[in-house]
């Protein structure tokens, strides 16, 4: 083996003859830096290497958010993204130019276990599947503090008006109604993006019309509502005093400890609670963002991130083998053991354990009933404007009105649509 490694050309020739490159392989994996992501990947890597001693994995972390988008795009473009990358599915995946940068995984055996709802969000424009799910699906709704709700005798709101009535009572009691954390600008988008179930309930064709440049946020009342909600919260003064600099972790701490009653957030946040305030994990409940009608109340769902293989990888065979393992029911069990159950995995034969935290138990019924979930817009349309988080900060801080903010966002997405070369823009 050692002499072979010294002669790369000969080794390659032997590998070609043998059909598979089963020499000692090291797969480099690029992760988003999240604690849960690392815990899941470490557990998977250990189990996989135990089974395949000739393949080891090397984990590398990148920043999250737009800084991370930048790293991933640049590395893919220069062919230095390694063997496996973890990255968002949906519109951000489309922006990677997947046909030329990522390996085709359509015929990966594990695709048979993966739910179609996920495959559709990692399908390139040419119809090929380029990724597998990594982690559970997430809900985009509101965390609430159960002890505070009990203390004030509140019930779970099913409409926006009920939600605002609850907020009024919380404010009267001297607590913060809605934890607001614009220090991490991405957290400002939840009222807009998480409201998409309610948008679709009223305008079922919004996603297609929006992609085809026929519908706009500013001129579709149902879509504008998310921006208006942000403005209402600001005008009522329902935020914490340091809302401009507070961070995501501050927000989860506030709602977990009862400092604040509500925090609109994606359900992946449970990992943070488990790490920072584990004693409060069962004080948290969860509900979908309430809309105009109590009869049509449901949850906006975020698909999990995906694992992809860069087309420039030198170890595509070994990487495929690992991805096959991750997307198996067994891989799924390993991930649940590593980080606990925070939401449904989109792999057939992968069941969640019975004793999930309260907020996860609150979320699961939405998934179990037909028509009570809808994917977020970024999974139905390739267009997501990069400045949304700055615009929602502006609307939520009273710098710009909801109507102006929505109009500005409509203008912002034009660039993305043109860059993607969509028709009709």
């Amino acid at each position, binding site marked *: 083996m050692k002499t072979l490694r010294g002669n790369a050309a000969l080794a390659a020739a032997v590998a070609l003859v043998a059909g598979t490159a089963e020499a000692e392989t090291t797969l480099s994996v690029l992760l988003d830096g999240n604690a849960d992501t690392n815990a899941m990947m470490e557990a998977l890597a250990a189990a996989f290497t135990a089974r395949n001693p000739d393949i080891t994995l090397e984990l590398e972390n990148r920043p999250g958010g*737009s*800084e991370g*988008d*930048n790293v991933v*795009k*640049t590395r893919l*473009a220069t062919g230095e993204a390694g063997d496996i990358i973890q990255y968002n599915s949906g519109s951000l995946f489309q*922006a990677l*130019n997947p046909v*030329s*940068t990522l390996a085709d995984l359509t015929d990966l055996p594990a695709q048979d276990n993966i739910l179609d709802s996920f495959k559709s969000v990692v399908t390139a424009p040419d119809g090929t599947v380029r990724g597998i799910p990594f982690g559970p699906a997430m809900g985009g709704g509101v965390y609430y503090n159960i002890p505070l709700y009990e203390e004030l005798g509140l019930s779970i709101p099913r409409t926006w008006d009920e939600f605002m009535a609850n907020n009024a009572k919380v404010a009267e009691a001297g607590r913060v109604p809605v934890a607001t954390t*614009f*220090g991490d*600008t991405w957290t400002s988008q939840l009222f807009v993006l998480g409201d998409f179930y309610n948008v679709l309930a009223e305008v079922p064709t919004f996603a297609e019309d929006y992609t085809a440049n026929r519908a706009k946020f500013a001129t579709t009342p149902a879509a504008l509502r998310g921006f208006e909600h942000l403005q209402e919260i600001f005008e009522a003064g329902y935020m914490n*005093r*340091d*809302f*401009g*600099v507070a961070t995501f972790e501050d927000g989860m701490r506030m709602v977990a400890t009862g400092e604040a009653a509500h925090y609109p957030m994606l359900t992946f946040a449970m990992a943070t609670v488990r790490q920072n305030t584990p004693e409060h994990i069962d004080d948290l409940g969860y509900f979908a963002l309430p809309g105009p009608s109590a009869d049509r109340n449901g949850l906006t769902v975020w698909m999990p991130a995906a694992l992809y293989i860069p087309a420039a990888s030198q170890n595509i065979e070994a990487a495929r083998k690992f991805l096959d393992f991750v997307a198996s029911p067994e891989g799924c069990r390993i991930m649940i053991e590593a980080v606990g159950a925070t939401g449904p995995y989109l792999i057939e034969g992968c069941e969640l354990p019975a004793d999930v935290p309260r907020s996860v138990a609150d979320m699961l019924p939405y998934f179990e009933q037909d028509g009570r979930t809808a994917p977020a817009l970024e999974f139905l349309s390739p267009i997501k404007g*990069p*400045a949304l988080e*700055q*615009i929602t*900060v*502006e609307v939520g*801080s009273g*710098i*710009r009105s909801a109507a102006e903010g929505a109009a*500005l966002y409509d*203008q912002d997405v034009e*660039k*993305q649509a*043109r*860059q993607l070369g969509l028709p009709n823009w």
Partner: protein
Amino acid sequence: MTTRRRSPYPYWFVLPAAVVFVTLFLVPTVASFWFSLTRWDLFEAEFIGLENYRQFFREPFLVQGLVNTLIYAVVTSGAKSVLGLLLAVLLTSGIWFQGFLRSVVFFPVLVSTIGIGIAFAALMHPTRGAINLALAAIGIEGPAWLSDPALALYSVALIDIWKGVGLATLIYIAGLAAISPDYYEAARIDGATAWQRFWRVTVPLVRPATVTVVTLSLIGGLRSFDIIWATTRGGPGFASDVLASVIYKQYQAGFYGLSTAGNVILFLLIGVIVLPMTWGCSKREVDVGACAAMAPVAA
């Protein structure tokens, strides 16, 4: 009419430098002009004429970013020159520990900008920051320095001034040292007050240093990015966005052609503001020293 002086070196001698210059400076500059005319995703570049420039000027944040850039540059360079001169007068007046105090003023220049940004973001926290806690102790409710849209840009400018004033002071100290003591003696004999000596002798004679300080800090202010990114990231919303941070955000979002167009605009803006200054001062015998100092920066 000037005739070009023959170089004392043969061509082969300057060739290595020429290769470096062409591949690392000339080619990228010319390429950036080309890419600014394309829709570019790092893989393919599609020629779209001046569309990127039209897009850039249509961005509502850009207009604000442009105004912010000018405000930021003028405020920081103005404050640095005024404060720098006053500090230089203090630190050349022969006070105790003069050498030590000069280093103290200069220390912030040496510290990493990102480090300073992070430290000030903590100091300026509206409820837990040291600045507002100190103000609260004397009964003043401090503002949200970095998250109040009306204040954020000026708070960042304040940090920049604190960090950069040491360099201005240093240049002024050198400028003051170059003024002959004879002028002050003559002024004193004529009965000039301290105030008159400052306005009539120091300020006019230190002008070369002033030109250097203003130009350096104006250019620095126009392309300022790191301190803004480390403190506010252009926020809240777009309130403290400047040209450089707008460009960076376009780059992050994957609009490579658009962000290249932004860089060309920044290049032209700096050229338009700074070139007349260097031409103007190269005509004056007095300012030759100052102009020589800033020539590399302007280029």
